[in-house]
């Protein structure tokens, strides 16, 4: 049986550092915030995705794994051991969804959208992208002074349309955390796409 990969070396400091990066990413949508981790989680879990998961997930938060992660049982073992989170096969029941293959991101409406009285009860998606790109999307909204360009690769071809539909549900909707090597960014539901022209 292979040895389990280690979690945070210093759980208090490392989870605070990961959370701080996520907090500023969420507060400044589209801004790419550096995140150093010393994790070596089992693939296809990436170090930054693992750090985000360890910082946010525990026994209170059902987690959904995308097919790429679910196909690697070491991933589930790693998350179960280090976080105690229940894994669910139902994306609508998940508080967090980990997506290692963002090109094959399921439809947004398969996840929990929140309730009108409790919009916070929606799924937070944590995606592992390969890199952040030069800016095909122009973002506006709370946390953005003026506008901010944003892009990431890979993402579904209809990603912009999905973001616009997600924004139209506001205050309901999904919040997205995107992780890439050495950095995180976020697209909360409050983010708007600037109209062209």
């Amino acid at each position: 049986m292979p040895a389990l990969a280690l979690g945070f070396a210093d759980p208090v400091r490392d989870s605070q550092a990961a959370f701080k990066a996520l907090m500023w990413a969420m507060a400044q949508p589209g801004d790419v915030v550096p995140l150093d981790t010393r994790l070596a989680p089992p693939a296809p879990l990436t170090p930054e995705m693992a750090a985000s998961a360890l910082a946010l997930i525990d026994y209170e938060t059902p987690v959904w794994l995308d097919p790429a992660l679910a196909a690697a049982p070491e991933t589930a073992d790693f998350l179960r051991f280090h976080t105690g989170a229940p894994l669910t096969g139902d994306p609508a029941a998940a508080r967090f969804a980990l997506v290692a293959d963002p090109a094959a991101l399921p439809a947004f409406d398969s996840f929990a959208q929140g309730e009108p009285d409790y919009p916070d009860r929606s799924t937070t998606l944590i995606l592992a992208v390969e890199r952040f790109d030069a800016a095909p999307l122009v973002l506006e909204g709370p946390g953005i002074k003026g506008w901010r360009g944003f892009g990431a690769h890979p993402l579904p071809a209809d990603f912009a349309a999905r973001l616009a539909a997600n924004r139209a549900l506001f205050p309901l909707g999904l919040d997205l955390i995107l992780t890439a090597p050495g950095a995180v960014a976020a697209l909360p539901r409050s983010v708007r796409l600037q109209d062209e022209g």
Partner: protein
Amino acid sequence: MNAQTPTPQAESRQAEARQAETRQAKTPAGMPAITYNFAYLDEQTKRMIRRAILKAIAIPGYQVPFASREMPMPYGWGTGGVQVTAAILGPDDVLKVIDQGSDDTTNAVAIRGFFETTAGVATTTRTQDATIIQTRHRIPEGALQAGQVLVYQVPIPEPLRFLEPRETETRKLHGLADYGLMHVKLYEDIARHGHIATTYAYPVEVAGRYVMDPSPIPKFDNPKMDDSPALQLFGAGREKRIYAIPPHTKVVPLDFEDHPFRVQHFAKPCALCGAHGVYLDEVILDDRGGRMFVCSDTDYCNTRQAEGHTGEMSAPAPEAAE
């Protein structure tokens, strides 16, 4: 710890260790010293609060329920703000705590000491040196900067609570963005007093959607919330709610076209530093009606005095010749 032949260095180290222990906790003789996790809260509690903070930032102005913990201070003394600060605080942060603008009143001193003891973080009274500013009922006069976090202590987070006591109903009103009640309240102010008589905890609309209680800050401070470069987090411990305003977010006080929102104005400048356009506290000087008005923000006032600004009650400068 039990050095056989105590050298002066060992003794001073021991004294330091003893001091550290008494800082940590007073323990009965023979019991191991109680030590706390960094910033007092356990890691699971911090994760729960951090999740609430992320949702609060994603839905500006919406009150996220959270499982507020018992804190070693009573409700009403800033337990919500303390829990938010404890959840975001890191070892490299520099903390400032103000109570009604002042760094040296009971609540501010106690909370600053709490985090010095449980987290060992650096503290400051200088607004521009702080990375996290926990506040009760004021926003600092000096402009906040990008990267700073302002943590508000909130007694009653629900702006509609005194108009509609049922939580189920206020949730529904927020869900429907039905804020007619609040406008009726402000209108009744005008009908009764001729102007909007709400002077603190003045309701604001955040990012064009949620109406939010800015905590009992004077309405004088409301304009500072709009388009602030700092991240603003609000914690209500007894009411178990966290909410947030991201940086550069539109925050608009509710008003009417014919009765627009106005802030308080003061007839005279600060009596100690001569500042205009700041929020002033009244200080009673004697029992014959003597009084003066001074900056409520002590750091702002001290900084101005150090820069040589004077007011009508300033002591004559002893080194005037310098």
